[in-house]
């Protein structure tokens, strides 16, 4: 089994100059298959359709959370409404300021084992799948990989996965 067999074809993506507010809205309402249930991460594509970054829920939380908080133990010194204020301010940031630029991706033909290897070593739960002409064609989710792998564990498919 290969990356392209398990991936979910790309339906939505972000642009680098989109604001975080719009990006957050899309993450919350993005299509996953046919349902609009939201996704936890989306690729960022430039005007040529090439991937320039990836943005996940974690990146957005990081953008809201002030960097100084982690430099010292300041967790005890916050106030009511602090997160809301920070979130409002962060809403105006651009996707390009916040996105991860070193994206771990796999080619369409990558074997499943290689995909799992990337997920474990880099601690990522979503892998953009890239076609031969460098376009993002889909996203491989940890959840789908999990179901594919555990199928053989549960002997539902005696042929196993290759």
């Amino acid at each position: 089994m290969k990356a392209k067999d398990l991936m979910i074809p790309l339906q939505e993506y972000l642009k680098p100059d989109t604001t975080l507010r719009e990006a957050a809205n899309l993450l919350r309402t993005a299509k996953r298959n046919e349902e609009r249930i939201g996704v936890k991460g989306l690729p960022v594509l430039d005007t040529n359709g090439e991937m320039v970054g990836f943005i996940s829920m974690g990146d957005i939380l990081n953008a809201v959370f002030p960097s100084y908080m982690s430099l010292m133990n300041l967790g005890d010194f916050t106030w009511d409404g602090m997160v809301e204020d920070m979130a409002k301010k962060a809403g105006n940031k651009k996707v390009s300021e916040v996105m991860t630029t070193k994206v771990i991706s796999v080619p369409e033909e990558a074997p499943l084992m290689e995909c799992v290897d990337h997920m474990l070593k880099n601690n990522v739960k979503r892998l953009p799948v890239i076609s031969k002409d460098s376009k993002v064609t889909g996203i491989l989710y940890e959840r789908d990989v999990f179901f594919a792998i555990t199928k053989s564990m549960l002997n539902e498919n005696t042929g196993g996965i290759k």
Partner: protein
Amino acid sequence: MTHETATAAQPFVMDTAFWTATVIFLIAYAVIISEKIHKTVIAIFGAGLMLVLKILEQHEAFHLEEFGIDWNVIFLLISMMVIINLMRPTGVFEYIAIKSAKLGKGEPFRIMAIFAIVTAVLSALLDNVTTVLLITPVTLLIADALDVDPIPYLISCALASNIGGTATLIGDPPNIMIASKAQLNFMDFIYHLAPIVIVMMVVYIFIIKLIWGKKLKTRDDLKQRIMSMNENEAIKDPLMLKKSLFVLTLVLTGFVFHGMLHFQPATVALFGAGLLLLLSNTHEPHHVLAEVEWPTIFFFMGLFIIVGGVVKVGLIKWMSLQILDLTQGNMFATSMVIMWFSAFASAIVDNIPYVATMNPLIVDMARQLWPDLSGTKLLHHVDLMPVWWSLALGACLGGNGSAIGASANVIVVGMSEKAGKKISFMKFMAYGMPIMILTVVISTVYVWLRYYVLKI
């Protein structure tokens, strides 16, 4: 006959070794200023070249005070870093910062003034870099709480840390280096530098009030955010805090009396670091030791060897002759040239390599002036003392001249940018340079009045 007496008695020769060492020195310093390659990498590589090209023998670099690594500086720095690293997790610094903000009753300028004073005092007792690393995050938090621009707070803290650090032997790396080379003790610095630093701080607070006092405004409900913070929650490890404060008190007391007890400052600090490590019951000293700023430590070691090379071949002696030539042996003029040149040089270059070069230069100069003296009789000659103080004042206060003039500034600007508040080079300079010039003018008047008019 030792090498030392040979160079003191005979004029040096500008041979191949002289030019090789000079070229290594000049290229290393040029690259450090350009920041094209990390300064520590260049310092280590330059030191390696000095050894491999036999400008210095290894034993000279490692074991001779005249040409080699100043282990007193190295161990003082490492030991103080270890003590601070062990203290940080207790939450004491968060406690001090939050307590200070509450003392300011949420009033924006009061908080700025109190933070500047706290930063200056901490910088005098710890080092500037540590102090701003501790104070900057809290400053950003407080500014967010009050919904005011954090940049004035950050700039005023950086400037205060460089002023405060000038006051003591351990406050700023130039002072640590000068103390070791000139064999001056902690109380010498307190006696000669602390009084004028206090005057500077009073003037400084007055100036920042003029600049920012009226501009900083907040609402009463936002002040409540500060007042409702409970600083006691910061203390995470009360037992370790007690141990840390005990050791810190012991070390500071040790510094006060080290001259009398004939201990080097590094001995006091190393003992303190060892004792606190023991009391901390840590089984993982590698965490504490890994947090020592090794790049800074190796930067020092590399520079000592590079400078040792140019001392040995006579470049430094040649430079000292040029200064004496310029000032015609007038010691007041020498002090002033060194103070003002040091200030501007430190604003442009890292003051550590600068002082590493100036220290042996001043010793060489003293040898020209008083060839019959040696040891502390030479180093503490009544006419030489104001020169040491001028170097310390110029090199420490010069750090305020630009955003790259002192490590503390670099850290504040970096952290501020990370928090989305960029302080441009020119913006920092717009405040830093006038403050630098003002404090050096105060120093000029002080040195002139105290050492050349009143002679006390």
